[in-house]
């Protein structure tokens, strides 16, 4: 059709279909001009990535020295060898890292895509309203794409962008494509950024559609733990990350007044999202009128690491699985216990017959009579109804199974005594539990080792597979911990959602100046080693010290399992705001995006930076000025790789635990290379050698003590004022004294001025600076005359981006 311009009358038209491709320009409702990088492509932010990896050297620890991906192989890449295609070890590791980050990214993004289609189908297009206290409402979407969605449907192009980029990035991993490790890492950082965007879209969609809390620091306390599941009722477990089917089960229970007959307990992030439903601002109307606060009726059965312990404890009558972090033999495990399983999402169908189009009565009848161990139902509403009805109907038929929840005393003794102490189990145990010793003690009647290692066990069953005597080791654990399982009853604060603009206004200045010493983000699963308890210890240490502590997902659940001397969980001990001495449960895995969002909002709301399509500028601000550090203390999946990489591209460092060497790559600084720490002063473009702050971007700590020390250290930023630096240095040194018994050897490099020194040790430190390090001290004025890497300068405006220079020198 020819191009037509002007105005046209349509009065006389009948039966005319008008197709409008897209509105290319609409009335501008945003006072920010478009930034330089809307919808960045693979190479758009490469300069920023290279700035990061020039300072934070890419460190690989290969798990496999070979490449087996193409028919040239297997190729030995050890040392300086190259594969037949020409790839070297570093590039091969970068390639594997990129693949892992893409796996994580696609898991989050595909989750969002599913919710996008489902919520549009169920609720129609809903306005994107986050309430009066959240005006910077989708910070990652704004910063990365330069758009500001006004309805759920407007997130569609954002998802489309992520999907296109993922396809491009995945193509780079094919043989004969990218061959340089630095470029693989730039691509991985891009995938990490896309992951953060996918997470934001996912969570925004569910917050709006299911009326979840929008930054509610007083989100309700909900029940958490296996012991909270009422054995007098049928127990439906919903397991995974995508609440679509699980929410429908809850709605069905509510509509049909079945809560006195069924308990719905979630495992993994579905658990968290169940407990957020209907607790928001009161719209959409359907949720407000029919399901207000329904989330408080659901229970948190436990984090994903508890799944097999739940199976052993026989706490479930029916299971619905959705997507992500589901043990892939869940069907076999359930079948053994006569627990019907319903797969509710196309991503996990477990070989089950697709019964989506069959009548509900028939499906329930088949499941209740154990004619089939499970079914796939890819319709959330039908799956929810089948789940609840099956759980209720199958409960009496499982009475015998329920009775034999635990092995008998005779069985326990027989199994324990059959151990030959061959140690095959210990050769395969991820947390290195001395299982042989534990079982030998059990045989002697001492159950204490089975109790004290119960939480350390990750429930992987590798020991059972290795045991030549076929000892059901998890059953021994369940037997020895029956009382604990029954009494595992705690409280967790429901996920509060994004950080409010008002909170950012309150903490922005103290964070940038350092007087709030930092934001600690505790994320991921808490599997290894001693993860459950240690994540609580980490949270407690930092909230006590006045940091802002945020957490999400399984970490939030696992840290709920411990109480203080008054019997209070951490959620009952501290308020839930985004502030010092507070602890926020932000929400599920996809809610991690709001922690990125909070950092972006410090740059935009507090510092007035334009976020629109301005990713590198915002990341540069965060790297230089926002003291924040993530920790994934026990993460299992590739999603943790993408989450951490997304944090890193935004300038936020992360510490991970020793099993995370399986991710193969870290970003580590070299403090002996002065030139790596040259930063631009944006006031005049002058170059300043800075202290290494933060020193690393992705760091594996060997012990929880080292983790805590490193987290305190990685909150240093060049922008800290003297009071802020003094506070941060105090915590850094104090943690070191507490857990290491001595000062950290590098404390002097963070001293710019005498007022940076912790009051507690000031005199001694000045003496040491003079005697050991040769600094010049004016003792009369208690001033440092020479020695520091740089002088303290309250107006210093650190940046790594040349275009931020205001006046060139």
């Amino acid at each position: 059709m020819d191009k037509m311009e002007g105005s046209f009358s349509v009065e006389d038209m009948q039966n005319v279909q008008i197709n409008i491709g897209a509105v290319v320009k609409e009335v501008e409702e945003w006072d920010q001009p478009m930034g330089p990088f809307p919808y960045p492509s693979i190479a758009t932010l490469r300069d920023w990535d290279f700035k990061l990896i020039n300072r934070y050297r890419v460190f690989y620890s290969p798990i496999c020295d070979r490449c087996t991906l193409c028919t040239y192989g297997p190729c030995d890449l050890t040392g300086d060898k190259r594969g037949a295609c020409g790839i070297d070890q570093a590039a091969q590791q970068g390639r594997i890292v990129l693949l892992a980050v893409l796996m994580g990214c696609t898991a989050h993004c595909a989750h969002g895509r599913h919710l996008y289609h489902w919520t549009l189908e169920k609720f129609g297009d809903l306005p994107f309203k986050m309430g009066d206290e959240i005006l910077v409402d989708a910070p990652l979407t704004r910063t990365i794409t330069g758009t500001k969605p006004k309805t759920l449907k407007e997130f569609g192009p954002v998802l489309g962008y992520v999907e296109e980029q993922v396809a491009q990035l995945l193509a780079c991993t094919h043989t004969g494509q990218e061959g340089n490790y630095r470029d693989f890492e730039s691509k991985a950082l891009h995938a990490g950024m896309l992951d953060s965007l996918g997470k934001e879209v996912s969570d925004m969609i569910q917050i709006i559609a299911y009326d979840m809390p929008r930054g509610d620091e007083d989100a309700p306390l909900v029940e958490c733990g296996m012991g909270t599941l009422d054995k007098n009722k049928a127990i439906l477990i919903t397991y995974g990350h995508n609440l679509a089917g699980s929410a429908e089960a809850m709605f069905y229970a509510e509509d049909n007044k079945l809560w006195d007959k069924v308990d719905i307990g979630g495992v993994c992030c579905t658990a968290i999202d169940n407990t957020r439903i209907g607790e928001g601002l009161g719209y959409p109307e359907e949720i407000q009128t029919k399901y207000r606060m329904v989330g408080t009726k659901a229970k948190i059965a436990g984090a994903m690491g508890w799944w097999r312990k739940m199976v052993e404890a026989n706490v479930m009558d029916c299971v619905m699985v959705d997507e992500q972090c589901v043990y892939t033999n869940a069907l076999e495990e359930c079948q053994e216990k006569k627990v019907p399983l319903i797969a509710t999402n196309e991503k996990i169908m477990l070989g089950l017959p697709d019964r989506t189009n069959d009548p509900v009565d028939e499906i329930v009848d088949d499941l209740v009579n154990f004619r089939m161990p499970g079914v796939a139902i890819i319709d959330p509403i039908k799956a929810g109804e089948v789940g609840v009805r099956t759980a209720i109907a199958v409960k009496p038929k499982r009475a015998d199974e329920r009775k034999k929840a635990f092995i008998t005393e005779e069985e326990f003794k027989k199994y324990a005594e059959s151990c030959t102490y061959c140690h095959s189990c210990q050769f395969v145990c991820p947390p290195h539990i001395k299982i042989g010793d534990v079982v030998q003690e059990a045989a002697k009647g001492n159950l204490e080792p089975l109790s004290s290692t119960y939480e350390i066990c990750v429930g992987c069953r590798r020991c059972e597979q290795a045991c030549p005597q076929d000892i059901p080791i998890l059953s021994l654990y369940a037997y020895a911990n029956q009382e604990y399982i029954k009494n595992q009853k705690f409280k967790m604060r429901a996920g509060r959602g994004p950080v409010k603009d008002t909170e950012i206004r309150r903490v922005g200045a103290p964070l940038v100046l350092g007087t709030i010493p930092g934001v600690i983000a505790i994320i991921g699963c808490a599997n290894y080693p001693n993860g459950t308890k240690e994540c609580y210890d980490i949270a407690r240490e930092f909230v006590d010290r006045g940091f802002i502590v945020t957490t999400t997902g399984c970490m939030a659940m696992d840290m709920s399992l411990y109480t203080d001397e008054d019997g209070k969980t951490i959620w009952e001990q501290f308020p839930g705001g985004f502030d010092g001495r507070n602890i926020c449960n932000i929400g599920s895995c996809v809610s991690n995006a709001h922690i990125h969002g909070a950092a972006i909002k410090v740059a935009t709301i507090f510092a007035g930076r334009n976020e629109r399509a301005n990713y590198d500028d915002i990341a540069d601000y965060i790297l230089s000025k926002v003291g924040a550090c993530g920790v994934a203390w026990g993460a299992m999946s590739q999603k943790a790789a993408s989450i951490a990489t997304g944090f890193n591209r935004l300038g936020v460092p992360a510490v991970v635990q020793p099993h995370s060497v399986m991710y193969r790559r870290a970003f580590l600084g070299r403090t002996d290379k002065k030139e790596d720490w040259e930063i631009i002063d944006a006031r005049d473009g002058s170059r300043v050698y800075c202290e290494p702050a933060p020193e690393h971007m992705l760091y594996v700590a060997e012990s929880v003590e080292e983790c805590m020390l490193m987290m305190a250290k990685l909150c240093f930023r060049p922008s800290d004022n003297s009071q802020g630096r003094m506070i941060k240095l105090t915590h850094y040194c104090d943690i070191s004294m507490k857990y290491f018994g001595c000062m950290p050897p590098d404390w002097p490099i963070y001293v710019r001025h005498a007022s940076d020194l912790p009051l507690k040790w000031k005199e001694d430190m000045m003496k040491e600076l003079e005697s050991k390090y040769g600094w010049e001290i004016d003792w009369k004025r208690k001033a440092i005359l020479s020695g520091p890497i740089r002088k303290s300068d309250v107006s210093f405006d650190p940046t790594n981006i040349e275009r931020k220079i205001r006046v060139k020198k």
Partner: protein
Amino acid sequence: MAVDTTKNAVPFEMAQIPGPEMAKAYNTAVIGAIVKKAKRPLLVVGAELFEDPVMFDKAIEIGKTGVPIAATAHSIKGFVERGYTDNVTMIGLHPLTNYLRFKDWQGLDGKGQYDVVIFMGIFYKFASAMFSALKNFNRDIKRVSIDRYYHVNADMTFGNLAFDPEKYHEAIDEVIAKLAA
């Protein structure tokens, strides 16, 4: 009779088979001789020493033979408590390995890169990965494990002694004797 440290030379985590190049298990005399002959050796110890505290004393004995010690994780605390910090440096295993892989690093004392690193008392999986980093990215450094595990990514290692603490202690004593001789 010397402890046979060459037995049971299979990866401590069974599935950890990295590729064609895998460590060889040696007896204590050979390992002791290699460390003794080194120009710039570095003993790297980790937090597992706390699980068997006598190992701190043995590390100190090694330190007294002139081998400097890098105390990773929070293991420095064990040395502070024993009043021995002369040639002990607190540093994380991750940054330490990062430095070790660069040929231009001047060491913890500023006197140059090391030629032999000896790991002891470090969480198995972490130590294995750090050996792998050196195996692939700085082959000038000899990688020696005197830990209680067979370390597949080392050059020289003991076989698995994790289930026999007494034998393991004896083996370490033999290495110390060789160094002190």
